Structures are given as C-alpha cells and as structure tokens.
C-alpha cells in the first residue's frame, strides 16, 4: 500500500517536474510545478509530516505559485523563443546532471539501503510539536524570519512601485 502510494505520487512528481523543464510556456511550467508540490505534500504525509504537508499546499502551492502565475499573467509572458546560443550549456549540462544524479543516488543508496518507511510510524510532525519547537529551540530563527520577510516586502516595494513623482 505504502509502496504503491509512494510510487504513484513519486511518478506524478517526476513527470510534473519533467514537464516543468520541457514546457516552453511558463504557465504550463507553473501548473506542472503545482503538481509537483501537491504530490510532494502527499509524500510528506506518508513521512508523517502533517503540518508540513499542509503548509506545502497552503504556502507553496497556494501562495507562492499564485504569485508566479500572477506575474506570468501580468507580464503576458508567452512561449519562449527558440534560439540556439546555449549549445555549450546543453553539451555540458546533460552529462553533468546525469553525473550529479548518479553520484547522489549512488551515495544515498549506499547509506540508507535497508531502512524502510511506513505510514504512521512517525507521528510527531503535527502542529503541536512544530509549534512547541518553533517557540523554544527555534525561537531565534523564527523571529529572525520576520526580518527576512520585512526585507522581502521592502525589496518588492523598492523595485516594483511606480515613481511617486
């Protein structure tokens, strides 16, 4: 059961991710990305991360991706033009990526070859545990993220507002 769930959503995630990469129109990419995020949320649940799964859907798929789509619409971005120019990138990129992937997968495989995940084995990923950690151990980063967000707000204003005069 877990295996099937995993396989199904992993497959969705991968297919959507590939779609992100191969689609030439940004809106298709954006929607595929939402798909990736959704399926990831399912996998999070599988790993017992209830809060994160929710946040994934709400913050990521909900807020951030909406922002993307909004900007795509705003800029009226069309399909990208086919221009060469990056032969080198492809030449270099594909083998490198394969190498990267192979390496990481190889190492991961060797490290965690035998441990298995089964649904419900880990149940401390609920809002309560998260909240407790946030306000004790992770109080500082949590507070500091406010600064981060403030910076983001200021930045967005600075860059995107119209001239007053």
């Amino acid at each position, binding site marked *: 059961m877990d295996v099937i769930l995993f396989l199904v959503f992993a497959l969705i995630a991968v297919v959507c991710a590939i779609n992100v990469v191969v689609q030439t129109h940004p809106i298709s990419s954006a929607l595929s990305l939402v798909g990736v995020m959704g399926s990831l949320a399912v996998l999070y649940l599988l790993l017992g991360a209830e809060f994160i799964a929710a946040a994934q859907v709400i913050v990521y798929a909900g807020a951030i991706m909406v922002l993307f789509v909004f900007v795509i619409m705003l800029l009226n971005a069309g399909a990208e033009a086919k221009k060469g120019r990056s032969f080198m990138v492809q030449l270099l990129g594909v083998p490198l990526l394969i190498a990267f992937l192979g390496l990481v997968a190889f190492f991961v495989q060797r*490290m965690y070859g035998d441990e298995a995940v089964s649904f419900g084995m880990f149940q401390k990923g609920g809002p309560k545990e998260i909240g407790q950690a946030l306000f004790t151990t*992770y109080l*500082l*980063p949590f507070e500091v993220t406010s*600064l*981060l967000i403030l910076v983001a707000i200021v*930045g967005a*204003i*600075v860059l995107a507002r119209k001239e007053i005069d």
Partner: protein
Amino acid sequence: MPANFGFNPADMTRFLPEILLAVFGTFLMVLDPILQKRASYAFGHLSILGLLAALGGSLAAYNNAGPAFGGMLVIDGYGTFFRVLTIAVGILTVLPSYRFLARQEAETSEYHALLLFSIAGQCLMVVANDLIMVFIGLEISSISSYIMAGYLRDDKRNNESALKYFLLGSFATGFFLYGVALIYGATGSVNLSTVRAHVLQQNAEPVLLAVAAALMFVGLAFKVSAAPFQIWAPDVYQGAPTPVSAFLSAGPKAAAFAVFLRIFYTAFEPIGARWEPLVWGAALLSMCIGNFAALLQTNVKRMLAYSSIAHAGYVLVAITARSGDGAAALMFYMASYALMNIGAFAAVTYLSGKGDRFVDVEDFKGLAKKQPMAAALFTIFLLSLIGVPLTGGFFAKFYIFRAALESHLVWLTVLGLLNSAVAAYYYLRILVMMYMHEPSEASETVEPLSTGLRLALVLPALGTLVLGIFPNWVLEFAGKSAAMIR
C-alpha cells in the same frame, strides 16, 4: 532541552547588534513619510547612527560572550571580529552613498534600511553556530543585496546585475541547502558543535558528509566568489551601483568567509584531509582566473571584481592552511581587504559621476593633477591591493602565506606570490592613468571631494596604513579569537 527553555536576558545582549540594526532599519522606513525628500541626508546620518549603535552593541555582546539561544548563536571573539568588520563596512558604504544617491536622485530611506538589514543578516551569519541560522542569515543578507544591486530600477545595468545575482545566488543557495540537508541526514543535527562531535566519533557517514561538504562548498564559494563559482562576480559588480559593488565585495564576502571558515574549521575539520586539496585547487584557480582575466579589463569596476576574485583566492590559501594561524590570517586579510577594496570603490564612486558614466580605466587619466588628494588616497588602496609593504594588504598577504608555509604549502605559496606580481600590473595601470597622463574629461569635470566621500576615502586609508604599520592591534585579537574557534 526544550522544556526548560526560558527567556534569558543575556541572550538579548548577545543578540543586541542585530536587534539594533533591525530597529534602526525599521525606524528609517517609518520616518520616510515624515521626513520627506528634502532631508535625504538625514537617513544617512541615521543609518550611521544605527551602525555605530550596533558597533557598540557588538562590543557589549562581546563583553558578555558565550552561546545564545540554546547554541543557535555563539558570541565569541571570532564572530565579534566579523560583526565589527561588517558593521564597519556598512559605515564605509554609507559614506560614499550620500553623494551617490544624491547624484542619482534616488530614494535614500529604503537604501539605508536595506543596508542595515543586510548587515544584520551578516552579523547573524558570523555568530551563527547552527546551519539553519547560517542559512537564514545568509538569505537576509543576500536578498537585501539582490535588491541593492538593482536599486536604481531604471538602470539597465542595475537590473541585469540584480537578476544575475539573484538567479545565480538562489541557484547556489539551493546547493548549499542540499548540503545542509545531507549533513542533517548524516548526523541528525545541523548544529556545528554537534555535527563536529558526531564526525569526531565516526558516527556520521563519511561519504555523505563529504558530499555534503562539497555541496556547501559550492554555496559558500559562490558567495565569496571563489573559482570555479566566481563567474557571477564581474557582471554583478560591474552592473551594481558603485557603493553597492563596494559593499558586495566587502560585507557579504567577509561574512561568507567567516562562515566558510567556521564550518570547515569546526564541523568539517575532522575530514580536513579530504577537502584540503579542493580548497587548494580553488585557491589557485581563483588567484589565476582573477588576476589574469583582470589584466585586460578596461572597466574599473569589473577589474576590481576580478581582483576581488583573486583576493578570494588568497583567502582560500589561509583556509587551506588548516591551522589557527590560517584562521587568524583570514581574519586579518578580510579586515584589510575590506578596507582597501571599499576604499578603492569609493574612489570609483567619486569619479564615476551621474549614472556611473566614468568607470573606465582611461577616465582616471590625470586625476592626480586635478584632485591630488583623492588620487593619493586611491593610490594607497591600490598599493595595498598590490601588497606593497606598510599597507594592510601586504601584511595580510604576508600572514596568509606564512600560515601556508607553516602548513608546508610551498607550491601554493610560490604560485600565490607570483600571482600577486601579475596582479601588480593591472593595479599599476590605474596608477599610470592617474599620475602619468593628462587629465581626461572625467577628471576635468569631477567635483571636489564632499565630506562623505572624503571620510569614505580617508578612513579606510588610515585603516589600511594602520594595519600596515601596526598590525599588532588587529592581529593579536585575531590570533586569540582564532585559537578559540575549534
């Protein structure tokens, strides 16, 4: 551990500089609608006030040194050194910005606020003892920097600079984060002390750790613009507003190096034999790429960007040394480098004029005739960048190569020193232009030094000379603090 967590007043003292910076930054923006445009210099004054306060704060924090927030932060000499350094960089960035912003008729409050936030992020990074804290600090610093690089939003080069910086920076951050994840996977913690303990006890998977180190190396090397991840720096420095380029080349870089060293000297120290050859190679590559590519540059900002790549290479030599002396050398180097580089950029700011028109090497022609004071100060920075004795740049190089030789890095030392001879060429070109040619349009039309710019040139020049003649003051502190990192 979480259960007995309580509010600890000492923690607040230790966190004081960041608080002050954030408060002043916010305050600036609150004041913006009240003060209106006519008082644009007031924001500069305020931000200097804030920086000075933060400077006091970091000293106060150092008086009360120790871990804070359950080991998230460690206030030690090392961290304080870099806190003070980044704050000083901030002050030296504000000074030339007065004139720069006025010239561009740009908004000042947000600029200064972003600067303060960015410095707050850097201060956080350098005292962080937890990778997640490092990550957040890094992001605060970086995101503010992205914005500042593109601050003049109607300027095409600013846009391009910001975009490149942002996209590539986020890209590299992705790698860094992946590294953090792998470390978490390998050790179950991202606290540097804990990680180190795990690694020392051989609990962690060495290969996974090595891959994690490699990935974090990517992220950090990117931030310090070390080869082969230096590639963004020339474009970004060239395109960003000149004071921002100055800031980027000093502040975030110093903070990133601080983190780099802290991570690799604490958490990854036990696997030093593995990463040392990599840093060795990166150091050499950075020096060579930076110096050789700079030989042909005509844009001063771009040239200084390449030079900053080369200097990153020298600093990596210090990391390669893997010794307390190496750490002290790095601290000293960053201090003198920050001073001389930011001074050099201030000189460029001075000459560049509205819209950064005059940033070509040729534009410096005859500056010494028209503005001997500015030229002389710029000369000090250039000589220091070359590494002529009695300047900070010389001692910095000297300490680094001494540390390297003590760790038997003979070839790296020889190649590094030869590189510094190559570097002399392009710095000399500017000197040639300033002193040995008739004035260009830029030097003919340049306005006299304003107070802010004057301070922005004189203070780092004094600092450079002091570091060159009495390096003891800084070096002793660096030596003591460096010995405590592990």
